[in-house]
């Protein structure tokens, strides 16, 4: 007699055989004692396995059911951590954020918020209708899809989405467009001839752009070489290789260029993000200048204040208000005049010529190129920075424990985390800038850039927690995680004190942790199980 094999019997018992085969087996076992016995033994084995596995053989650890917070305890570690954290946050605000905001105010952005500054007072909206192109839509669409994929699983909680939406709303709430601007697109030269007049905002894309006539509105230019010899009653906003303003601009000049030269009159402010900015001796600026550049030469007349962040600053003109200079080197020529306060913060002693006229003595603060390892202040500062990072990590654990846990695990997969980190480190700002330029995605662009910065900063927390886990072991519970975070961040902070290598370690940790966050977000977002 042909017996049925064991697997067929098991499948039969598990109800996995088709009806015909099952009927065959039933008929066989009614006649075959051996197979009957085997079936009985297999069924018994199944029950036996089930009983053995289901049996509650050991107590469930009580700490798995511990409440997450203890009402009556205030461990010193927490108090110290919050103390450090708060002090760190205060230091961060006081030393970095607040001065930057103040300097933006000085630069003439006081009437609007920082976002609006980035949006160039909403002026770009005016050209929106004509700037939509397939590429821009593709860029927007891709980024939108990416954001949706990343955050769709958290739709209900929606905190991240809320940030994005709020930023978008901010952008939407900007002053509405005044009307369609006059737009010219050319690969070659665009010239608004002398005597010609545009009674509208003018947007020009071109190689060589020359404005010799009058524009009764703003001028927004994207080109290689731009010359403004005529008269612009509004602002000039330029994205170009080199820009020369020889005519008259009644509003502001905002330039994102390689080289900016101002020889004419600017009614309000100059803001320049460039390699070289030259405010010529013939120029006259009504209000403030605000320069971010490698080389800044101020030879003309500035109505109010000059705020300069540069590699080298040469001042030989007149600043009627205050001078705030944070450059590597500053030289003040003999023909220079500063009517208000003057302060310099940099690495080298400023060179002030004998004939320079300064209403107040120049305040000089030399920043040491190397950290002062012998000063207690230096270590206090490091402790505060550690506190800031730790507080930030605590907030992450509190608000996004799942992501933190995933990111710490993802840190274990160094190649993937590092690869994603490098990729997103470069790609995110590019996408954010594209979004900002495409206008409709401005809110999204700014939000993603802010999230990017937060992500980069949080990188150290994930690597820190991972490092702590390697050192202390992977014990369960929030307290253990916090302990690991504190230790890991401390180790990273100490490693960063190493001369030269410290910077590299910072970069490595940031990329690694940022990549781990991306991997974690990916794992959180992807569908991991069937719910149907």
């Amino acid at each position, binding site marked *: 007699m042909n017996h049925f094999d064991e697997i067929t019997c098991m*499948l039969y018992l598990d109800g996995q055989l088709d009806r015909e085969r099952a009927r065959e087996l039933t008929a066989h076992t009614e006649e075959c004692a051996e197979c009957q*016995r085997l079936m009985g033994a297999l069924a018994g084995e199944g029950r036996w396995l*089930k009983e053995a596995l289901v049996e509650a053989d050991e107590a469930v650890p009580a700490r798995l059911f511990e409440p997450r917070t203890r009402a009556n305890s205030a461990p010193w570690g927490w108090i110290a951590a919050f103390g450090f954290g708060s002090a760190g946050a205060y230091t961060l605000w006081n030393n970095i954020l607040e001065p930057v905001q103040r300097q933006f105010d000085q630069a003439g952005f006081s009437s609007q918020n920082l976002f609006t500054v980035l949006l160039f007072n909403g002026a770009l909206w005016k050209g929106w209708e004509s700037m939509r192109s397939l590429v821009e839509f593709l860029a927007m669409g891709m980024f939108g899809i990416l954001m949706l994929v990343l955050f769709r699983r958290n739709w209900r909680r929606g905190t991240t989405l809320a940030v994005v939406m709020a930023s978008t709303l901010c952008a939407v709430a900007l002053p509405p467009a005044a009307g369609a601007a006059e737009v010219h697109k050319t690969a070659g030269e665009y010239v608004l001839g002398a005597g010609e007049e545009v009674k509208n905002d003018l947007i020009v894309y071109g190689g060589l752009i020359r404005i010799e006539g009058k524009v009764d509105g703003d001028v927004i230019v994207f080109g290689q070489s731009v010359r403004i010899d005529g008269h612009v009653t509004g602002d000039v906003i330029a994205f170009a290789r080199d820009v020369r303003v020889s005519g008259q601009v009644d509003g502001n000049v905002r330039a994102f260029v390689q080289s900016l030269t101002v020889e004419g009159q600017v009614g309000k402010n100059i803001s320049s993000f460039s390699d070289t900015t030259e405010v010529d001796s013939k120029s006259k600026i009504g209000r403030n200048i605000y320069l971010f550049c490698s080389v800044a030469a101020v030879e003309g007349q500035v109505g109010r204040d000059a705020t300069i962040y540069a590699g080298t600053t040469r001042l030989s003109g007149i600043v009627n208000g205050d001078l705030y200079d944070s450059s590597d080197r500053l030289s003040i020529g003999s023909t220079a005049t500063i009517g208000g306060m003057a302060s310099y913060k940099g690495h080298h002693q400023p060179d002030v010529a004998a004939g320079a006229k300064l209403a107040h003595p120049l305040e000089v603060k030399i920043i040491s190129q190397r950290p002062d390892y012998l000063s207690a202040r230096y270590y206090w500062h490091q402790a505060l920075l550690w506190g800031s990072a730790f507080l930030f990590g605590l907030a992450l654990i509190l608000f996004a424990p799942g992501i933190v*846990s995933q990111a710490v695990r993802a840190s274990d997969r160094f190649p993937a985390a590092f690869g994603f980190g490098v990729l997103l480190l470069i790609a995110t700002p590019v996408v954010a800038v594209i979004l900002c330029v495409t206008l409709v995605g401005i809110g999204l662009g700014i939000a993603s850039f802010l999230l990017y910065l937060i992500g980069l900063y949080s990188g150290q927390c994930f690597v820190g927690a991972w490092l702590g886990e390697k050192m202390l072991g992977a014990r*369960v519970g929030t307290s253990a995680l916090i302990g690991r975070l504190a230790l890991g961040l401390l180790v990273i902070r100490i490693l960063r004190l190493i001369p030269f290598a410290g910077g590299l370690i910072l970069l490595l940790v940031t990329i690694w942790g940022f990549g781990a966050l991306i991997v974690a977000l990916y794992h959180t977002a992807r569908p991991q*199980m069937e719910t*149907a």
Partner: protein
Amino acid sequence: MSAAEITEALEQARAGSSEAWGQLYRLFGAAIFRFCRRALPTREDAEDATTEIFMKVRDKLGQYDASRPFSAWLYKVAANHCWDMLRRRRVRQDLETGDLETLPLEHPDPGQLENLLTERSSQEVRRALAQLPARARMALVLRYYSDMSYDEIADSLGVRRPFVGVLLLRARHQLRETLLQGGDFRARAGA
């Protein structure tokens, strides 16, 4: 807790009630811990995994389809999590598909199997289970602890459905062998 009470607690937990979530955690925590204890090599791993599974479940409550039993969904999440953990540790699948196909399908001796069932205690079975390769152990736990169907097992372990039976049978063979070897050692030690 009745099914209706679980459903209500789930709805409240979805709406953000920590109390309702706590009730669910207390109700299912022990079962999930035991699941992890059977599936993972160490107690510490099981504790970690239990916490992480519940964190994950809480994050994903919105995805739960209320037409299915909550415990089944919970076990599915737990199975995926534990299997991911094991895979991350490079615990490679003990057998590739090719090996599964070459499994000898000899007729076992029912008498020997019956003896084994009567002689070995549940504790010995669990000890033997812990010595099995990860995938064999996982397959038995999914089937006999979580009552998962063959489809669910195939999905969780990433194997084709027709191989689930082979995988389970092989795991049972390995368990029997481990128990028999243990018995021999014990007999020798006692001799």
